[in-house]
């Protein structure tokens, strides 16, 4: 086999594939954050905890009810999204009239509570979630063997991201969302129930996080701390992509996953900080982020 920059192709490609998988989760999570932020003006700190919740709901469905991966892929986002809707209705809503940082602090508190509850129930060590039968095994790409499940994660995440983008940019529902992001008062005066739209949007963003959690369950261990680890990286991804830009969230998500993968090949010591470094550089060069509008 050949080499690229002194690296065996398989090693390089393997790391790039892992980078794309991480990137899938970054993209799904930052997309949800961006949608929520656009309409609610709230940075949803609980997003990581909701991602973790998605993975655990899938795990619990399997272990307590015997419900497998495919139904869980639909059920877990619905369940966690419904929990999110309750959170919005009874807590987050009360903070729309005060400074936006309170939304961040509230959701941070919620994240701590969720993480603490699951640590009590399950401890720090992760639970294993089996790969669904249909997606076991490897596929030979010629230059490398790719586990089928990992390929599925990349394809399905990309599809869900693009579908979400399409709904928001190209449909009537998306037009309501974009308009309400600009001027909620006026959209409501046109006869649209904006408070319900806001609640459903939060629920949808949370459901995206839970979907990512289910996708992640067979890849990583299902662990109470999986959300806290990823959410800070996702914040950096969102800042790099440009707050409020959906395309920015998707592109930055996958792109930074790749950057992280490449770093792991060439300079592994820096792989855990490279995204933060990129963020610092982007902020110095273009403070509004790669795809963001100055504001």
């Amino acid at each position, binding site marked *: 086999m050949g080499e690229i920059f002194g690296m065996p192709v398989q090693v390089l490609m393997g790391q790039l594939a892992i980078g794309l998988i991480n990137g899938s989760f970054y993209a799904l999570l930052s997309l949800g954050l961006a949608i929520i932020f656009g309409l*609610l*003006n*709230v*940075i949803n700190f609980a997003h990581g905890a909701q991602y973790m919740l998605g993975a655990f709901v899938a795990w619990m469905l399997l272990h307590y009810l015997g419900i497998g991966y495919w139904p869980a892929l639909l059920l877990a986002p619905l369940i966690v999204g419904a929990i999110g809707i309750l959170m919005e209705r009874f*807590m987050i809503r*009360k*903070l*729309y*009239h*005060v*400074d*936006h*940082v*309170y*939304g*961040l*602090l*509230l959701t*941070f*508190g*919620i*994240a*701590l*509570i*969720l*993480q*603490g*509850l699951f*640590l*009590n129930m399950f401890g720090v060590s992760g639970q294993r979630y089996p790969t669904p039968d249909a997606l076991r095994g490897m596929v030979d790409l010629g230059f490398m063997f790719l586990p089928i499940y990992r390929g599925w994660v990349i394809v399905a995440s990309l599809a869900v991201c693009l579908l979400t983008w399409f709904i928001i940019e190209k449909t009537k529902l998306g037009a309501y969302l974009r308009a309400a992001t600009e001027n*909620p*008062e006026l959209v*409501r005066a046109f006869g649209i129930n904006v408070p319900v739209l*806001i609640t459903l949007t939060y629920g949808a963003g949370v459901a995206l996080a839970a979907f990512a959690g289910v996708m992640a369950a067979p890849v990583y261990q299902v662990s109470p701390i999986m959300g*806290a680890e990823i959410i*800070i*990286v996702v*914040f*950096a991804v*969102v*800042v790099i992509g440009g*707050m409020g830009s959906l395309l920015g969230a998707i592109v930055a998500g996958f792109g930074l996953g790749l950057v992280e993968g490449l770093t792991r090949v060439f300079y592994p*010591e820096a792989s*855990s*900080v490279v995204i*933060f*470094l990129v*963020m*610092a550089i982007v*902020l*110095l060069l273009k*403070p509004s982020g790669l795809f963001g509008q100055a504001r």
Partner: protein
Amino acid sequence: MMRIALFVALVILAIIAPFFVYPVFLMKVFVFALFASAFNLLLGYAGLLSFGHAAFFGTGSYITAHALKVWGFPFEMGLLAGVVASTALGVLFGLIAVRRLGIYFAMITLALAQMMYFVYLQAPFTGGEDGIQSVPRGTLLGLVDLRSDLNLYYVVLAISLAGIFCIYRIVKSPFGQVLRSIGQNPDRSVSLGYSISTYKLAVYIMSAAFSGLAGALLVVVFQLASLDEVNWHMSGEVVLMTLVGGVGTLLGPIVGAAVIVTLQNYLAEVGQWVLVIQGSIFVIIVLAFRKGIVGELSDPESWLRTTLRRVGMRSPGPGPSARPGEAVDLGQARQPVRSGD
């Protein structure tokens, strides 16, 4: 006047306290009181929510620990090394972060601090998961042996109070006045011709310096520098202390630090429930008591007003008026006290 009298009373109480309470516990309270006061300088007066203050706290503790243990610095120089390092980091982060406001600022500072966490996790001198252990305390000016908890107590008390007093002076200075006007009404401050970024950068660096001092002191007290001090969780804790005590008040961070440190002491056995309890405190404070303990107690009028409004009576007299379009619906209005964007 009342506040100064109260403050003096508290100082006297602090002097006799170690004869009744475990000094190490008290020192921890003072260290965190200083840390929270430094944090409050930023949030309470300039309206900037930093979610990454652990970076400065941890830098102060790691550099001081290394200076005392490996370089053999005397106590004073060890502290200074920690403060200088955290100040330098403050300059660096400040240049990156202060251009973005509000929640962006919070996210960026959190991410930068997380980067420092990984740096300290991997850097050869920090001892990774073990941290830097058995850091020597040394002596004060070569005279006072700090191995005695009681001796150290008074030194830590004096330094913490001096730090808090400095912060108080900063708040009361003309510089502090400008800061407050920036925090409350950024648009007006622009028209008054202040360079907001410069002021914000300055206060961010000051806050970093005092946070570093607190981290340095913590190392001397516990003779240990560890990843706990640079973890995002530490950044959250200092936010919690300040919120609980009262954002934008002098005594608030001190009270908040005392409450949270005490709570941690009692909750040491309940394990992960600490997270649940801390999270619940966050939720309750943010939803119901945004002024914190000191804020609610020292402002009886406002307390009364909110209570009156809750039972459905309109309070008479003029109040803070919002501009058209602000108080209406989605997140347009500002809290009169601290504004983050």
